[in-house]
């Protein structure tokens, strides 16, 4: 009888430890980003001067803007590709469909190092795409579109396709049907994938590092380069920004999915 009581307790302790293990470093960074300590590694009173430094640092600002532009374009193009691909995979039957569907997963499951180096070789030796914005954006689209495909495909499997038939029957062409009926119904899933893709693209380091070339420093790469000179408190503020943006994205996804459910 005693053993039975102990098991849930162990599980509880383990869960708490895991949560602490997951969250402690993140929370520490967020706390130290407001600390007066000049190495950002202990608490010496509250300050916002590192945030001021962050904003006035040109390199950081350039990297941030670059990352935002890349993530923005990646989100738009990836969700577009994802929507079209998911639609095709769901609606049409063709030879090799199952293979294509599985192979789309590859960029997600492959180690980033492999994808990154493969893309670099591809860009420099085969298709000669200039390293910088073009190469980074293409690389991001490569590993972000599959995510959109699978989120939107999941929504399509719960979709009432008689809406589409009704629209066709009422005189809408297939294109108009997509614009007026199918698209709006898929919008929650499209938005959800956009919200997940944004931090994916914004945070990516490994693949970006391979294909960035010289002079196209994104924010994660900037952070990494700064670490070589030892951790500075500005890094803590960037970390806090990353966490906040990502969390905001996830919260938005949560709400979008909630409203999406209640409307159908």
């Amino acid at each position, binding site marked *: 009888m005693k053993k039975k009581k102990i098991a849930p307790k162990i599980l509880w302790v383990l869960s708490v430890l895991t949560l602490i293990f997951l969250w402690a470093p993140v929370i520490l960074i967020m706390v130290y980003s407001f600390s007066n300590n000049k190495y950002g590694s202990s608490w010496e009173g509250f300050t916002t001067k590192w945030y001021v430094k962050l904003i006035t640092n040109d390199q950081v600002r350039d990297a941030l803007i670059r990352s935002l532009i890349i993530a923005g374009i990646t989100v738009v193009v990836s969700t577009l590709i994802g929507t079209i691909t998911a639609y095709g995979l769901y609606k049409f039957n063709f030879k090799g469909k199952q293979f294509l569907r599985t192979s789309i997963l590859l960029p997600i499951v492959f180690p980033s190092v492999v994808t990154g180096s493969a893309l670099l070789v591809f860009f420099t030796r085969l298709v000669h795409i200039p390293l910088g914005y073009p190469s980074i954006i293409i690389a991001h689209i490569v590993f972000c579109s599959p995510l959109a495909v699978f989120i939107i495909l999941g929504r399509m499997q719960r979709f009432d396709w008689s809406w589409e038939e009704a629209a066709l*029957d*009422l005189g809408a062409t297939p294109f108009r049907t997509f614009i007026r*009926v199918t698209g709006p119904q898929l919008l929650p899933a499209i938005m959800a994938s956009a919200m997940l893709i944004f931090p994916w693209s914004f945070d990516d380091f490994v693949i970006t590092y391979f294909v960035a070339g010289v002079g196209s420093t994104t924010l994660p790469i900037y952070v990494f380069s700064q670490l070589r000179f030892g951790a500075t408190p500005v890094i803590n503020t960037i970390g806090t920004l990353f966490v906040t943006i990502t969390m905001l994205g996830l919260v938005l996804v949560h709400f979008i999915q909630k409203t999406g459910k209640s409307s159908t």
Partner: protein
Amino acid sequence: MSGSDKQPAVCLEIRDVVKQFPGVTAVDHINLEIREGEIFSFLGPSGCGKSTLLRIVAGLENQDQGDVLIAGQAVNDLPPYKRDCSTVFQNHALFPHMTVAGNIGFGLVERKVPKAEIKKRVQAKVDLVNLGGMEDRYPHQLSGGQMQRVALARSLVLEPTVLLLDEPLAALDRKLRKEMQVELKRIQREVGTTFLNVTHDQKEALSLSDRIAVMKDGVLLQIGTPNQIYETPRTQFVASFMGASNIFGGSVIDSQDGQLTFKTETGVQVVIPESKDIPDDQITGFSVHPELIDLIQEDAAPERMCTETDVMLPGTVKEVFYLGDFSEMSVMIDDTDIILTVFMTRGWSGPNMKMSQGERVIAQWSGDNMNLLVG
């Protein structure tokens, strides 16, 4: 084109249409003509191909063979959005992100009708289906019956040549179904549009339709008015599907003076009047509706008048189901395994309605009330 003034013009024609799905022929060489302004029903059990046929007319499914003509024009190669017909789907298929008015106006927007006119025409249809005041509601705020009305208005507002109804009442509960049936008839009378209805409910088909086509396994078994289909089914399947519980297979063994001697598979011999429509050797059975059979207590029998063509079979009451307005009795005919189903209504049968189990009776019906079957 002369001499056809009596009958309204044909507005939908189905010519030798075949549709095959892997392993099954859903629609098997069907020919049909549906006239302007009638309510025509495809009736049959699920999987008989009736919905597939409807979808072929709508253009949502392509036939393998044959032609569909709407208002005399072949529409085989036209996609659904170019056909002059509109469908009311079983699950309504209302657009969840559009209001009632938005749903009803959907097709008009696609036809680039000016906004002011859309508003006017939508309002007219909202009034027609009694949805006044609900224009700004969303489908999830409506009841099943109201959604059905929106779906109906959404199709009717386009003034199609044929309105296709795919089991429009199946999703509704019994009381609502009756109500919508009355509504459908009223609406059809008001707009005069041809209705092509698909249903598996024979009662619905009988009360709603001007003509019915009974289908089974992709084949058209019989076309006729509700009267014809109910009272003179041609085959065993149609007879049983329309609720004639007493069906006897067998053949004619003798014929004289306009009287046929019919022997059932279980050996009972019955004399039936000759039919002028069906040759003797094609008769494969007959059916009698339960409400046409009378039960007489055995000892009271001689007092009753009966003609030569009356069929009289002695038997025992096996089961009595009292249903209020009528009783359903099962009567086992002596020396056979035939169980007759008999309906005794309160008005006609009076005390006989309360016959009890085990009672000896004579089942009697007029030979004229027997319906001959050919398949």
